[in-house]
């Protein structure tokens, strides 16, 4: 029944699937982001209180959301790698880390630009921004640990443990930072029953979220391909790919 799952243990299969999926995700991301930007920057009206500066939300919120989502993917695949020793899971975690760190950085920078008109300063130690900064540190720590251990197997397992430890810690960090400074606005879309955002603004926001999600999947596929080639460089099927110039 679960025979298909073994396909994901087969690198050539995953490589071919990723090669096929990468452009599909890339195209979807481009469409969503372009339409979302048009709707958000041109069509959507200005906010009653914040004027045009609220429009940073169309970049800030999707990247902040992705910074969390990518970490969840990283931690889940790390756990899968630790439990079942599935090499693909480790490649996914390895591939996700820099993408997640980039989303976190975008969220921080856009948050700072939003903060200037909102709070009168680029940076205040508000809860959301502070946890985002700590998340960036955790991403950087993960990547630093991976690159400091020479043996790839050891590096992979140590980094996987760190990712799992982080996922237990992140809610605690988030919660404590929230208590430490409860000045930021509550999450806007988390109230699913009644979004307190007007539909003309919500539509482009959701499009941007979908676009960023697809962008992540596109980047993931590209990096997973690289990861597979790096790890399987000594195998016959990679040699064949190279010989046929299809890398």
């Amino acid at each position, binding site marked *: 029944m679960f025979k298909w799952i073994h396909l994901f243990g087969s690198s050539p299969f995953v490589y071919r699937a990723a090669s096929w999926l990468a452009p599909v995700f890339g195209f979807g991301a481009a469409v969503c982001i372009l339409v979302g930007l048009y709707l958000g920057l041109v069509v959507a*009206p200005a906010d009653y209180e914040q004027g045009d500066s609220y429009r940073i939300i169309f970049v800030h919120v999707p990247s902040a959301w992705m910074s969390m989502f990518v970490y969840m993917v990283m931690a889940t695949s790390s756990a899968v790698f630790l439990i079942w020793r599935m090499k693909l899971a480790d490649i996914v975690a390895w591939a996700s880390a820099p993408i997640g760190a980039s989303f976190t950085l975008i969220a921080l920078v856009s948050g700072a630009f939003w903060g200037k*008109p909102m*709070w009168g300063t680029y940076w205040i130690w508000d809860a959301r921004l502070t946890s985002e900064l700590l998340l960036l540190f955790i991403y950087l720590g993960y990547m630093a640990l991976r690159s400091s251990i020479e043996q790839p197997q050891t590096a992979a397992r140590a980094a996987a443990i760190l990712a799992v430890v982080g996922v237990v810690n992140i809610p605690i960090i988030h919660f404590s930072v929230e208590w430490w400074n409860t*000045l930021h606005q509550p*999450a806007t879309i988390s109230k699913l029953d009644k979004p307190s955002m*007007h539909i003309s603004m919500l539509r482009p926001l959701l499009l941007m979220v979908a676009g960023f999600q697809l962008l992540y999947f596109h980047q993931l596929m590209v990096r997973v391909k690289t990861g597979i080639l790096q790890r399987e460089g000594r195998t016959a099927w990679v040699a064949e790919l190279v010989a046929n110039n299809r890398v």
Partner: protein
Amino acid sequence: MTPKRKQRLLLVAAMLVGVSVAVIFLLKAFNSNIMLFQSPSDIIAGKVKEGSRFRIGGMVVEGSVERGDTGLTTQFQLTDTANKVPVIYEGILPDLFSEGQGIVAMGSLDSSGLFVATEVLAKHDENYMPPEVADALKKAGKMPGTAANYGGSTVVNP
């Protein structure tokens, strides 16, 4: 049961006890209400010593804001709907600072009961809408987060 199994069971049990202790104390902490800032009522009630540094949270009283003649000094009153405390601040106020707005200020009380703020932060609400919608809501008196329905409790426990 073999000693090895018993040992492992003991460890698992100890772990579960640990996690439940954590949960119990977490709940206890929730009930004990950690205060991140004092409300004007706390200050009137004399809970804070003169000169010690703390944060005060509340809503700017409508019509109470006076800009000083010289420079950037601003004086206003903060309320939690029950009591009022006068606040003085020298510096640039955030754009969102306005009458009826919830703010948090850091500083200390002087001997006359005036709160001397060294920092003022404005809370902004979680609503995003076009100006026309906001106007319509205001007219209908249904605007969320404005003075009309900004209860004291919202300010004290944001």
